[in-house]
């Protein structure tokens, strides 16, 4: 068992491409760390450097306090689950799981015992004599897990292990993987592009974009206080509504399109950075659940801010309803911050004519084409520098 | 012979071979209509200077008349001409005349129906032709058991001993050896004088020079049934005899000291003599012009050595080379042309031209006489040695020739035996004995296929 420390780790390929820039993360022993980001963000490269499958160009990697940059994968005592499982097609399930033990010259009976124990944990006992080709996707995934846990490794690495499963199985396996990790209790790094997986599984989540660490924190913190536009856009489903806006005189209001929301004194005190943006453009972010259909909730103090828009589409999810609406604000272009539309959030589609999505009660009385008002709690607004994308706090 | 039982007349194909039916004229077919030229194809193995000399004769014939136009086609090696002729015959596209080499004689002769016997063809067209028109060695080689010629002997040569005058003189040897034991002691003398290799033999045809011709020249039988002339069934080789074993042992002794060099059937040995590596060379007289062109030293031609103490030796050598066969299955109008072309080739003038330009011997006494009267032999004594060997004595039952079915295959077996002796892999006795056994198997296969 061991902690993992990445200290300004970089990866440059011979062709000059730099996949990872000065990545620094500490992962405590027993911690479940998720690396998340859109494809090409460098998360898999970072994981492979920890595994020892890629050389580290600069920076240091320590496992259990020992620098392991030059240590072979075998000696790092790291187990890894691959995206396509990478099972040995010519071996039975038992041999797949027991391969590493055999290489360590464990006795036959001891190997058998450990394989059986791992199979029990994973519910693979009755498949031990099968070959991978005879198994379902979920079973193969379990074998891959079994191959990793049977070794009692110091570090447990997973590279998108659920991405090849169908949606239902994926949800089941999320919990399963998290349960197994807690059971073996070693430091784990889990790579995914799926922010839902990241949010639900990680003790902490490191968001990577463009080879750089954007923010690393507990899932709720990422959601509530995204450090920059990239994280704001990437985390959350449906994605945060982001608009080009401008602060009014004395930062007392924010103008979004032709509408404006008053910012109370308390807010300005809480986020002193806002003062400097008085009269300047910013990007303002509003999560879908912070748009209250029909105005402020009755219990709330009276908000000075409302947004009015036209209903374009209604997505009824049963437990709630997503209301797509339009008004005259300009949406912040997410491509500017390296997140392509549709990559951040798989659910919650933003149509071309829409400018926003709001969550509403499942049976709210709205119809397409209707003009509606949304109450906005100013305290729940997010402000970002229009140029750097950094959060204004 | 079941097939032979069918009367073969010119231009009539046997039903068995399924050839297209031709006019079954018992009498000679007419000449082609005036103004109409008939094309005749002749397949040969003549390349290089031989091809040039043959083409010259062909164009002379074409110029001498206007009814027939002969085209000579070079088909490759002797065995290729034979296999191509066979394939063409089966496809009903045989040439008019094909040049079949000595060793293929039995194969075609015993395939009655595939050819029109030349003696019959000539009599159809009233052209004077008899076995006696040819020199003994050539006529006897190709005649049937009834003393008739099914094919016309043409390019005929016989092995002779070439010797490098300069190297022999340098070693103090004034005349070339006349016996094999003399040759062996001369080899030691040459070696002592720094001439390591004394002798080489024909590359592809060492079994011809040192087994077949060795037998006839020294008067030993080569196979039973008078070397195959009087029967097919029960054919057996007689090569496992003391003289042949001793001869190969002698060559083996020389080879072990580097005094005899032969490098397998696929390697030409001519350069070994012409570049001075070996002082003496057993090779066909047909190579005379080639050697003359390449050798930069004075050389002579002598008769082959004989086995010392052998009373009968020297007997006579037999011809090697090929004869011309007229194939059956051609349109009737072709055959008069075939006959006239062959008649032209056997004329004294043609034979004199051919012999003097190639190193082959004239196959007719008339050709020889013409050359003598022209003084050719006095100016070219080397050319006379082959004629002398062939006509040294009247052929005996064992020296008229060698008529074995699948002789090319038997030769392969013999070449293997010679290679085994020369490389020291086998003793001469063991090699010859196993060659005879293998050869007899081949002869038995031929007998069961051709023996009726």
């Amino acid at each position, binding site marked *: 068992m061991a902690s993992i420390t990445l200290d300004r780790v970089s990866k440059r390929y011979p062709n000059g491409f730099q996949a990872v820039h000065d990545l620094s993360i500490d992962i405590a022993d027993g911690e479940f760390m998720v690396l998340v980001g859109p494809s090409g963000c460098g998360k898999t490269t970072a994981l492979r450097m920890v*595994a020892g499958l890629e050389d580290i160009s600069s920076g240091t990697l320590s496992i259990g306090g020992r620098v392991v940059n030059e240590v072979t994968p*075998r000696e790092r005592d790291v187990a890894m689950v691959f995206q396509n499982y990478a099972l040995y097609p010519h071996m039975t399930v038992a041999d797949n799981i027991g391969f590493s033990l055999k290489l360590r010259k464990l006795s036959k009976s001891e190997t058998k015992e450990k394989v059986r124990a791992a199979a029990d944990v994973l519910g693979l006992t009755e498949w031990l004599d099968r070959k991978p080709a005879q198994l379902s996707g979920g079973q193969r995934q379990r074998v891959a897990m079994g191959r990793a846990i049977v070794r009692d490794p110091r570090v447990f690495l997973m590279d998108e292990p659920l991405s090849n499963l169908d949606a239902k199985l994926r949800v089941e396996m999320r919990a399963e993987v998290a349960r197994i990790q807690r059971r073996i209790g070693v430091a784990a790094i889990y790579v995914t592009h799926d922010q839902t997986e990241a949010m639900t599984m990680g003790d902490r989540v490191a968001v990577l974009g463009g080879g750089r660490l954007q923010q690393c924190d507990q899932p709720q913190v990422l959601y509530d206080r995204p450090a920059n536009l990239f994280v704001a856009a990437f985390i959350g489903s449906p994605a945060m509504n982001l608009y080009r806006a401008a602060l009014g005189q004395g930062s007392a209001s924010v103008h979004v399109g032709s509408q404006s929301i008053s910012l109370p004194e308390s807010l300005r005190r809480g986020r002193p950075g806002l003062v400097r943006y008085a009269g300047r453009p910013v990007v303002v972010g509003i999560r879908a659940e912070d748009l209250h259909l029909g105005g402020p909730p009755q219990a709330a103090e009276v908000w000075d801010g409302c947004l009015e828009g036209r209903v374009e589409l209604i997505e009824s999810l049963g437990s709630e309803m997503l209301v797509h609406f339009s008004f005259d604000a300009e949406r912040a272009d997410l491509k500017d911050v390296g997140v392509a539309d549709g990559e951040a959030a798989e659910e919650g589609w933003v149509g071309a004519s829409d400018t926003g999505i709001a969550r509403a009660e499942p049976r709210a009385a709205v119809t397409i084409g209707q003009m509606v008002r949304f109450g906005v709690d100013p305290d729940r607004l997010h402000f970002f520098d229009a140029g750097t994308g950094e959060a204004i706090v | 012979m*079941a097939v032979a039982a069918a009367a073969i007349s010119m231009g009539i194909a046997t039903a068995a071979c399924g050839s297209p039916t031709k006019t079954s004229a018992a009498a000679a077919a007419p000449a082609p209509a005036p103004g109409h030229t008939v094309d005749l194809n002749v397949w040969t193995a003549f390349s290089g200077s031989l091809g040039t000399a043959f083409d010259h004769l062909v164009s002379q014939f074409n110029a001498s008349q206007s009814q027939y136009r002969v085209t000579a086609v070079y088909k490759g090696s002797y065995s290729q001409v034979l296999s191509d002729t066979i394939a063409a015959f089966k496809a009903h596209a045989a040439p008019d005349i094909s040049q079949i080499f000595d060793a293929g004689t039995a194969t075609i002769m015993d395939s009655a129906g595939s050819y029109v016997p030349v003696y019959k063809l000539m009599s159809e067209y009233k052209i004077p032709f008899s076995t006696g028109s040819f020199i003994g060695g050539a006529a006897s080689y190709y005649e049937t058991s009834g003393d008739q010629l099914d094919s016309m002997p043409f390019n005929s040569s016989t092995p002779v001993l070439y010797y490098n005058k300069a190297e022999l003189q340098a070693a103090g040897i004034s005349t070339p050896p006349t016996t094999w034991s003399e040759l062996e002691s001369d080899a030691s003398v040459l070696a002592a004088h720094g001439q390591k290799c004394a002798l080489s033999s024909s590359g592809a045809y060492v079994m011809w020079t040192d087994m077949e011709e060795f037998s006839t020249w020294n008067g030993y039988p080569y196979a039973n049934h008078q070397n195959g002339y009087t029967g097919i069934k029960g054919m057996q080789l007689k090569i496992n005899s003391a003289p042949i074993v001793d001869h190969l042992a002698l060559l083996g002794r020389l080879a072990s000291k580097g005094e005899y060099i032969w490098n*397998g059937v696929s390697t030409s040995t001519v350069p070994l003599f012409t570049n001075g590596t070996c002082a003496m060379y057993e090779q066909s007289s047909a190579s005379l012009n080639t050697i003359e062109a390449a050798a930069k030293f004075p050389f002579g031609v002598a008769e082959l050595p004989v086995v010392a103490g052998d009373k009968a030796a020297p007997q006579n050598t037999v011809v090697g080379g090929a004869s011309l066969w007229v194939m059956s299955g051609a349109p009737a109008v072709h055959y008069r042309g075939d006959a006239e072309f062959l008649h032209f080739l056997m004329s004294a003038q043609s034979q004199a031209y051919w012999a003097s330009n190639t190193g082959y011997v004239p196959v007719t006494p008339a050709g020889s006489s013409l050359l003598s009267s022209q003084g050719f032999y006095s100016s070219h004594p080397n050319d006379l040695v082959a004629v002398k060997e062939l006509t040294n004595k009247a052929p005996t039952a064992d020296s008229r020739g060698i008529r074995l079915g699948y002789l090319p295959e038997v030769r392969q077996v013999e070449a293997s035996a010679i*290679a085994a002796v020369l490389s020291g892999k086998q003793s001469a006795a063991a090699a010859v004995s196993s060659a005879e056994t293998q050869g007899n198997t081949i002869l038995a296969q031929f007998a069961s*296929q051709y023996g009726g």
Partner: protein
Amino acid sequence: MPPVFKHRLLPAALILPEVVVVVIFFIWPSGKALLEAFRQSNAFGLGARFSGLANFGSALHGGYLQAVEVTATFTAITTLVSMGISLFLAVQVESTGRLRPVYRTLFIWTYAVPGAIGAALWLFLFEPKVGPGARALEALGVHWNFALSGTQAFALVCALTIWQQSAYNFVFFSAGLQSIPDAVVEAATMDGAGPVTRFWKVVFPLLGPTVLFVTVSDVLAALFGSFAVIDVISQGGPGGSTTTLVYMLYRDGFQNGDVGLAGAESMLLFVLAGALLVVQFKVFNRRVHYR
């Protein structure tokens, strides 16, 4: 799938060219060879008669057993050595970087040289007197003359066949290696396997189908395709030391004009090759893992 064609004529017409090719170039000649094997006739095809098993008797006589031995040795040596060399080269080339395409072309290249031309080239290299290869061997103290030494002729024919066959095998081993997912090899690395263990426990078993294919191709090439090389180098000699069964068949049938004997020999070779392939598939099928 339900039938796509309404008419029966169209599918028949579509497979007709294939059927014609198979019948003309395979079934008809094979039938002819089978027929001739039980007949004796002279070279010109005249006077054919049924002869029972006489041709088979003659075939099994004489040099046949030697040819079987030569063929077996030749097949075993060329197959094993060329597979070993090509697999080694393919593995090495796969682990190179930017120069990989260059190496690949280099090693495949020899297969583009037609058999007879390659043979002529080697014939020149190892010509006993002037060939540079022969001189090098002489310098090493080998008395080189393959025209007389059966062992040397056999070695030369083997070496040349291996030289050509290795390039062919290399193509397939390269492709086979590329089709093995990197992740599986990486998984073995993570499981603690070193390069040698990775190769023998993971890569080689996954090459199973390729190995089977290459073995079968090599055996067939040795049994049937050695003809051109032998014809150019040694014509089966000296002393039958390079006479393989197929060369013997060629010589008996085409040079010696004994069609019946050649027919019998071709039937024997056919049975032998068929039996060998059945054994190969049986042995391999128990071990090969098809992905």
